[in-house]
């Protein structure tokens, strides 16, 4: 793996770590950060977001499981 590729993968890893840290912080007492599930539920009060999230979920499965 080239140094550039390694840096790119590290970039993805940093984003994943950021998500884990946010979720961890959101579970602390009196946290002002909502948990991911609360955020999703909040977003899904909008019809647009309901349908878009549903598509995003399904597409992830289709794309990765089938490699299409």
């Amino acid at each position: 793996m080239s140094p550039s590729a390694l840096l790119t993968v590290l970039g993805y890893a940093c984003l994943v770590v950021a998500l884990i840290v946010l979720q961890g912080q959101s579970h602390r007492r009196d946290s002002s950060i909502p948990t991911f599930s609360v955020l999703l539920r909040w977003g899904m009060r909008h019809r647009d977001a309901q349908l878009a999230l549903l598509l995003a979920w399904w597409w992830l499965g289709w794309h990765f499981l089938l490699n299409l």
Partner: protein
Amino acid sequence: MDDNRGNGCPTFVIGAGSMQLTVSRRVRVALRRALHESVLLVLVVTGIVHVVRRNILDVALFFGMAALILVERTRPPRPRVAALPWPAPSVVLGGCVLFGVAMLPLAQGSWPMRILVAVPGLLALLVVLRTGPAPALSQQADTPGRRWWLWVLVGVAAGLFELANFASQGGSPDANPDHPTVTAVLDPLFADNAFRAVFAVLWLVAGAWLVHAATTSTVEVDR
């Protein structure tokens, strides 16, 4: 300026006494509206990315969903249909595990696998469309927590990073190994049947949760 009031948005106070005008509410409303409107924009941009990828199905899916959202917007308000009875969590989890087991012996991209993945998506869409939109929004529950935007920040950063790496490929999936996309990084893992089966279980659990949340969402927020 007080950045701790409201929902984490900066508050500007203009004037004095009863003439005071807080801009924080306007900022909040504008930000929320921008996020709301960005759903269509994201779908269209993603659709364009799939045009570059020359994937007809994905193009149809993303532009089709954008069209469906526009159609839903034009429909007159209607009462929400009662959600279908939801099985116990253990039953849902058991079903998801069975789904993963059924996936285990299937070759990646085979027709049985395509059908197995397509069916939950279609069912989920039908259930959500049948139930209808959530009730009208309450002003009190307009944000779930002061720092909700941190999630959006990371999400946008991830989207832009992936888009930049995708753009560097010049339209061909693996043309630039120096800047791999998420797909290029994860593909070797998905070549393994066991990994695919575990992912399939988690994917279906997430889908079940999404459908449950979409069909039971109300103006109330959990916290």
